[in-house]
């Protein structure tokens, strides 16, 4: 798929998410006292799925990541995710690829549930479903080695290598998920994500074969996150939850 098509698809997805969130905002009747944005708490979570997938499915990939988000009016959840990934793999043709990289994603989750009751008062939210957007960036130290070039007729053979430090890759993500309060602020959640590589610092982006935090650079990737963590509610929010 061409770069242009990728960008168009991403923009359409971003627009659809924005439309959904705006539609939800319009549904609730406006109330003077609740019209301004309110801070309702924060949460911190660690992703369990990516390290487990690395252990269970592909031992050549090790990733760990954690996230913090802030609850604004129970509708908007600005989110920062940070992690570190390492990959080391060898193909049957002898080619090897290894990379290590810290990565970060910045974005927002949008609560899909109604945030106000029939009287226009803010509803407390222990559990919610959401759509989210992210922009991710990864600074990759990588080494691609022993890639063979062969021209059988001329009996030509050579092994090529590429390597680099602080090569960066940026990508966009569209995600959908749920967040559930299990007990006393201890929360879990899961999300599925579609990722689209937008740009890299390399002319030959294929040489960044695997980007920690994104995945295989040759196409769109889907990933699953399962998170466990803690959510802090403000005093006002806790009093609503007790009612």
């Amino acid at each position, binding site marked *: 798929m061409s770069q242009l098509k990728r960008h168009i698809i991403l923009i359409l997805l971003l627009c659809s998410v924005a439309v959904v969130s705006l539609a939800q905002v319009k549904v609730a009747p406006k109330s003077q006292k609740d019209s301004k944005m309110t801070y309702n708490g924060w949460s911190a979570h660690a992703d369990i799925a990516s390290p487990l997938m690395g252990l269970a499915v592909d031992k050549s990939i090790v990733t760990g990541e954690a996230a913090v988000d802030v609850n604004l009016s129970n509708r908007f959840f600005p989110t920062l995710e940070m992690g570190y990934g390492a990959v080391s*793999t060898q*193909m049957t043709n002898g*080619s090897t*690829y290894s990379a290590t990289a810290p990565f970060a994603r910045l974005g927002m989750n949008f609560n899909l549930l109604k945030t106000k009751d029939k009287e226009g008062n803010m509803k407390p939210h222990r559990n919610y479903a959401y759509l989210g957007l992210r922009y991710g960036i990864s600074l990759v130290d990588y080494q691609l080695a022993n890639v063979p*070039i062969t021209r059988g007729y001329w009996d*030509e053979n*050579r092994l*090529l290598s590429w390597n680099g430090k602080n090569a960066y890759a940026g990508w966009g993500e569209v995600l959908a998920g749920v967040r559930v309060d299990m007990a006393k602020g201890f929360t879990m959640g899961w999300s599925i994500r579609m990722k689209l590589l937008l740009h890299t610092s390399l002319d*030959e982006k*294929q040489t960044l074969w695997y980007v920690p935090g994104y995945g295989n650079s040759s196409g769109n990737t889907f990933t699953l996150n399962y998170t466990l963590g803690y959510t802090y509610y403000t005093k006002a929010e806790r009093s609503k939850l007790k009612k």
Partner: protein
Amino acid sequence: MGVSLYKTVFDAKKEAFVSSPTKEKMTIKGLNNDSILYQEQSLSNFNLPLRALQSTSAFVLQRGVLESDTIVISHENVNQFISLECGCFVYHTIKSTATTTHQIDSLVIENTYVQNVSENHLRIYYRAN
């Protein structure tokens, strides 16, 4: 590199030399290479493998039982990594050509960028018998 054969003949009606595609019985191999690419095959189009690690590729072409010609292709090579699974492809840019003229009249570069072997990159014009 895709190659097509042309033959130049004198058209009495037009009273001029004209060129048209031709099919010839060809035997083709790389210069200083014992392996034969095509042996006495009737060809109008064929592919020649350019060298991946050197900038000059030379081939010996024999039409029928006539004296053979040697063509020399000067080219630049660009290595492009595709993926870890597929490895690396080598693309070529033809810079110049040269040929002996026992049977061949001239060479014409049709497309300098050699990426797709199904395309035609070089025309070989043979003189009429």
